[in-house]
């Protein structure tokens, strides 16, 4: 199909690391139009080619790096997805990242890469336009992402972009991520332990530099469509996107604390007395390189929500990207550390070592609570581990990446930590993945998304709180005329399902950042997609159905991998312990009522298994192998 050359580049790469065979393959037009890109493509190839029962860290797991057709296009098309089986959850992982890496991969002329097997010795993949080579990486194995990138830029191209793992990924830490950067600073494809999969394959990094162009089917119309979306983020219209430009995600921290949903003391409560010390306001005043100005954007993004920090306090000094809200809350309020320079430093260490800040912070929080109740002792750790101890936070983060001593079990994540010391219920996880920073007792739809998202507790695959707490008009009709009550449970199953299906195609498969397009009506996103690719995708209903298909295929992958309805649950804390104080005082998460509703509306049986009628409606035929 000639259309394929618009939006997409039309080709992908297969790398067999076991025998160093590299193949450039033409995309299958039927797959591209059915699954579009990024997350959709990822689950398609994982379903077809990987046995879900495979151990995530064994060579027969595959590692897919995929962009979408709109990656490298404004507004905010810059996402790359790392799709594989997760060593943390045992189910599907799809970690997304912005920055410039995906755009540069497309400028090399490739939409996605599938890695198979395992290299005998450490290697990195160097793609310069059509020239693709595997190179030895022994000299950077063991180095942090920052040093690795510097060395790789010197030996490849000074303007190259890089996706690399740090020592955490090499050491198979189940919380390890992939850090993208290169000539620019760190951006993390954070969740699900995707960095450990790269580490298990002895793949240290992917380096890209390209000079080819990406074509758009109808450039004139596409540019007009971009201009139409301008109004949704342009100042001074109050909007979430322009707000993010103004404050960065860290600006959210005071807000969630005011709402009483800022996870504190390992999610015991939702208000943190030290919140003002680690807030966006304090950051802008003291540590932001450009003060309150937007300081850094991803490729083709007009908002620029990233912040750059400069810390001069002795012992914590350094420069780096971030910190973001999720990092500060996980490493800060969850552990009760209100020493901002220490929190920022812990985040920098995570970036350099290649570890997910959310899972890392929440795992340290879990250890602190285990110590508080006496399940962990001074002998286990080497010192008294108390909530609020900034030095302990930094010490444990370093040990976790190195998997030294007590750090070994920390590197397994909080669930395995809690289990080992007899208290898995103190691990704030769903499907063994740590919760992001919105206490579900105060945002019920978001909580339901944590419970049901296929990659475990996670906010990005359904940001229901856009309707519940943020005053955005995301997804048109959900909030426009409705006053959404964040504590209500009525209608939340429907809302969560809608968000999950919509995010699966509109952001995660197209390559758009949802921050930027959360206020853009569905039809305008479809217009952008169709004018870029020149393909008619059949309108909103067809695309929402595709989103549902992607979500359901991921669910099936998880079920075949051994996950089941018993994994669809928040920790007991949220179900049984009423919120002790703050604006959410007395609230619990009514999972017993929300979840059956959700299964039913999804067309799943009471065990959470998609029923035959639903599969037929979506055109999924699990009996015919995995092919659909």
């Amino acid at each position: 199909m000639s259309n394929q050359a618009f939006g997409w580049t039309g080709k992908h790469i297969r790398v067999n690391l076991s025998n160093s065979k590299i193949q450039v393959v033409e995309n299958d037009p039927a797959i591209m139009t059915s699954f579009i890109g990024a997350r959709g493509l990822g689950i398609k190839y994982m379903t077809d080619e990987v046995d879900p029962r495979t151990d995530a860290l064994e060579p027969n797991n595959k590692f897919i790096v995929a962009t979408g057709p709109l990656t490298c296009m404004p507004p905010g098309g810059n996402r790359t997805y790392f799709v594989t089986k997760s060593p943390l959850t045992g189910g599907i992982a799809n970690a997304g990242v912005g920055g410039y890496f995906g755009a540069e991969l497309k400028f090399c002329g490739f939409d996605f890469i599938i890695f198979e097997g395992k290299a005998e010795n450490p290697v990195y993949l160097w793609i310069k336009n059509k020239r693709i080579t595997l190179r030895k990486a022994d000299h950077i194995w063991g180095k942090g992402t920052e040093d690795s990138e510097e060395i790789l830029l010197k030996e490849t191209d000074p303007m190259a972009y890089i996706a690399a793992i740090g020592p955490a990924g090499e050491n198979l830490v189940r919380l390890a991520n992939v850090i993208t950067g290169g000539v620019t600073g760190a951006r993390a494809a954070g969740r699900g332990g995707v960095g450990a999969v790269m580490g298990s394959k002895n793949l240290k990094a992917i380096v890209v530099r390209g000079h080819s162009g990406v074509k758009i089917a109808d450039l004139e119309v596409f540019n007009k469509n971009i201009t139409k979306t301008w109004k949704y983020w342009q100042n001074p219209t109050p909007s979430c996107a322009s707000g993010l430009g103004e404050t960065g995600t860290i600006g959210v921290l005071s807000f969630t604390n005011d709402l009483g949903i800022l996870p504190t003391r390992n999610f015991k409560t939702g208000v943190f007395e030290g919140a003002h010390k680690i807030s966006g306001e304090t950051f802008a005043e003291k540590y932001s390189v450009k003060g309150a100005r937007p300081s850094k954007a991803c490729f083709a993004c007009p908002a620029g929500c990233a912040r750059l920090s400069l810390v001069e306090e002795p012992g914590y000094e350094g420069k780096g990207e971030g910190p973001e809200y999720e990092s500060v809350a996980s490493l800060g309020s969850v552990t009760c550390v209100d020493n901002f320079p220490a929190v920022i430093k812990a985040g920098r260490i995570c970036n350099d070592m290649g570890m997910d800040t959310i899972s890392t912070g929440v795992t340290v929080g879990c250890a602190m609570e285990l110590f508080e109740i006496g399940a962990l002792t001074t002998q286990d750790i080497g010192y008294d581990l108390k909530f609020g101890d900034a030095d302990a936070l930094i010490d444990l983060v370093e040990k976790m990446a190195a998997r030294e001593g007590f750090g070994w079990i920390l590197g397994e994540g909080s669930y395995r930590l809690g289990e080992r010391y007899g208290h898995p219920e103190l691990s704030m996880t769903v499907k063994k993945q740590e919760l992001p920073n919105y206490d579900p007792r105060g945002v019920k739809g978001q909580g339901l998304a944590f419970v049901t998202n296929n990659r475990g507790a996670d906010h990005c695959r359904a940001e229901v709180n856009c309707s519940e707490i943020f005053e955005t008009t995301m997804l048109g009709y959900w909030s426009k005329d409705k006053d959404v009550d964040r504590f209500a449970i009525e209608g939340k199953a429907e809302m969560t399902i809608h968000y999950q299906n919509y995010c699966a195609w509109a952001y995660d498969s197209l390559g758009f950042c949802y921050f930027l397009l959360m206020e853009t009506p569905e039809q305008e996103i479809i217009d952008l997609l169709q004018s870029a690719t020149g393909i008619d995708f059949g309108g909103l209903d067809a695309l929402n159905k595709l989103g549902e298909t992607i979500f359901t295929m991921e669910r099936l992958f998880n079920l075949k991998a051994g996950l089941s309805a018993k994994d669809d649950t928040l920790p007991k804390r949220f179900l049984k312990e009423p919120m002790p104080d703050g604006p959410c005082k007395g609230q619990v998460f009514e999972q017993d009522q929300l979840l059956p509703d959700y299964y039913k509306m999804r067309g799943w049986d009471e065990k959470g298994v998609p029923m035959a009628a639903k599969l037929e409606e979506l055109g999924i035929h699990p009996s015919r192998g995995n092919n659909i």
Partner: protein
Amino acid sequence: MNKSIEVNLEKCTACRICEYICSTHNFGEINPSKSRIKVKIISKDFFYYPMVCRQCGKAPCIEVCPKEALIRNQKTGAVEVVEENCIGCRMCVKACPFGAMDVHEKDKLANKCDLCGGDPECVKHCFYGALEFKTSANVSEDISMEYIKKVKQAKEQEVEI
């Protein structure tokens, strides 16, 4: 007086939409390597600078060109490439003190900013105002206004300057 593209570098976020706009406008494809404006990045220092032709008054590229392939557009003030005269010797690339001169990947002929005929697209799409299109008189006026504001402030506070 002719306008030129002025860079307010503290406002640049390195979003590179200028590169998207320039390459799609001039070449019909998204291709930063062909873009006539390029955001240069010094990563470790968080420093980004959109590099684009200064349209110099006494342009070294024009002076060094052996084939009269670079001429000034009298209407817009832009230095433009006359492709049929260009032999691709790249002397202009070396002569430009800003590294703002580029050559096409394929035919190696000179590739540079022509101010889109007097209404540069990149400036229109720069959200934070890192790029502005104005005359040098405007530029000096802005700088002197900033300066005299400081003088006024100092005088009000009776500070010696």
